[in-house]
Structures are given as structure tokens and as C-alpha cells.
């Protein structure tokens, strides 16, 4: 195979990658999921910062909330992950079997003087900071959708 550092031939403009997977409600699956999604972003030349910070942290937050909050760590309950990425943007969907939550209410300013000393409550805040858009809706489960535009 051509080594990745010496790409030959013409670059692909219309590349579109998608990933779908399902994991049991166990936080030990998180790292592999994150690694796989980050690699897809690498293939599409997302910035190093996005590949090594924005995507890993935001996705880890969404996954741990789905596992711990949504599915309350019932191993028989599943978390579905969908990733859809092209040269313009990444869309991530994390689906749990819980009853959902009110995003506007649960998302707090983690930098306020009372919150900055707290141990928890930074998950949704980080998703909102690291992604361009965070949405929550119900669709065969509780869906958290993260959208991020590609940076060079």
C-alpha cells in the first residue's frame, strides 16, 4: 500500500464516510469508538485540533451521558453511534434507551464562579463549546446530535 504520508494521485473531493455501531452500556467501549470516529475525521483532513480535542472530548461526553445517564449502565441496554462525515462537516448521533432530558435546562455555564468549583456538570457545556451545534430529540430512543464544520 502507499504509505499515508506519501499520497499519490489526485485528491478526492466528494468523499463521504459513514460509521454505525452499537455498544453495551459500558464505559470501557468509549475509547475505541472515539478512536474510530477520530480516524474518519483524519481521513477527511480535519484539523489536528479537531481530531485530537474537539471530536474526542465531545463524543466521550455524549457517550458517557448515554451510558451513565440515559441507560444507567444497564449492560443489556445499548448505545448506538452514527457518524456521517464529509469535507464540510461532521455529524455525530449518539442514541440511548433512556427517556431523554431537557437540553436547555441541563446545559449550564460551567465557568460561573459557583460552577467552576463543581466536580460535575461540564459535559453538555463542553459539547456546546467544542461543537458548532448540539441537538437533542427523540427518535427510536434519546438522540444527541453533534455537528461540527471542518477546519483545515
Amino acid at each position, binding site marked *: 500500500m502507499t504509505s499515508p504520508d506519501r499520497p499519490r494521485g489526485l485528491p478526492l473531493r466528494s468523499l463521504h464516510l459513514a460509521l454505525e455501531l452499537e455498544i453495551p452500556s459500558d*464505559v*470501557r467501549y*468509549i*475509547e475505541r469508538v472515539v478512536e474510530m470516529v477520530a480516524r474518519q475525521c483524519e481521513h477527511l483532513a480535519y484539523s489536528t*485540533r479537531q481530531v*485530537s*480535542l474537539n471530536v*474526542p*472530548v465531545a463524543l*466521550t*461526553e455524549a457517550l*458517557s451521558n448515554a451510558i*451513565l445517564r440515559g441507560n444507567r449502565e444497564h449492560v443489556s441496554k445499548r448505545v448506538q453511534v452514527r457518524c456521517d462525515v464529509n469535507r464540510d462537516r461532521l455529524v455525530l448521533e449518539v442514541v440511548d434507551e433512556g427517556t431523554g432530558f431537557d437540553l436547555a435546562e441541563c446545559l449550564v455555564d*460551567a*465557568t460561573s464562579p459557583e460552577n*467552576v*468549583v*463543581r*466536580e*460535575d*456538570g*461540564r*459535559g453538555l*457545556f*463542553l459539547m456546546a*463549546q*467544542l461543537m458548532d451545534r448540539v441537538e437533542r430529540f427523540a427518535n427510536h430512543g434519546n438522540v444527541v446530535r453533534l455537528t461540527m464544520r471542518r477546519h483545515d
Partner: protein
Amino acid sequence: MSFALRKQGEIVVVDVEGQLIVGNRQELKQKVLDELERGEKKFLIDFSQTGYIDSSGLGVLVSLSKKIREQGGELRLANLNDDLKTLFELTKLDTLFQIADTRERALESF
């Protein structure tokens, strides 16, 4: 082996290798609390070999810093790469922790 602890003078130095996230943060917490219970007072966490940290990892750092202070001890952080610096800035946790650029500086600062 995500967390390597070693004693340097009277300072406990912890290297975080790989991620500090929901799946392993308890391990870090327990290891540091064990040392605190043994009477150790000065702690340095070095992130030079760290990938990323999630909110629960940050939460453990906040929790440890409180517990160490309660025992009259001190916690310093060192070697945050640019991504991790950004993470601490976004959450304003850079105002809560004493962060040194290098391990040497952190060791000198106690």
C-alpha cells in the same frame, strides 16, 4: 498502566498516560487518595503523555485538589499540551489550578 506514580524528593509525581476519562478516572483518584492517606502532602500531575481529558477527568482533578487542600497539601499540574490548555481555558479551570509549563518548574514551585 495508565497512571505511574513515583516519589521525587517529598513530591509524589503522577504521570497520566493516555486518556483521563470516565473509564479510568477512579483509578487515578484512588491512587492519589491512597498516598494522601499515607501522609503525602505534595502532588504533581504531569500530562506530557496524556491524550485527552473529559469532563469526568476534569471533575476528578477538582475533587483531588479539594481533598489535598483539606489535608494541608498542595497540587500542581504540569506539561499541558495546547489542546489540554484550551480545555482548561474553556472551563476556566486554569484559574483554579496551579499549572506549570514544565515538570522542573512545577517541582521548583512547591
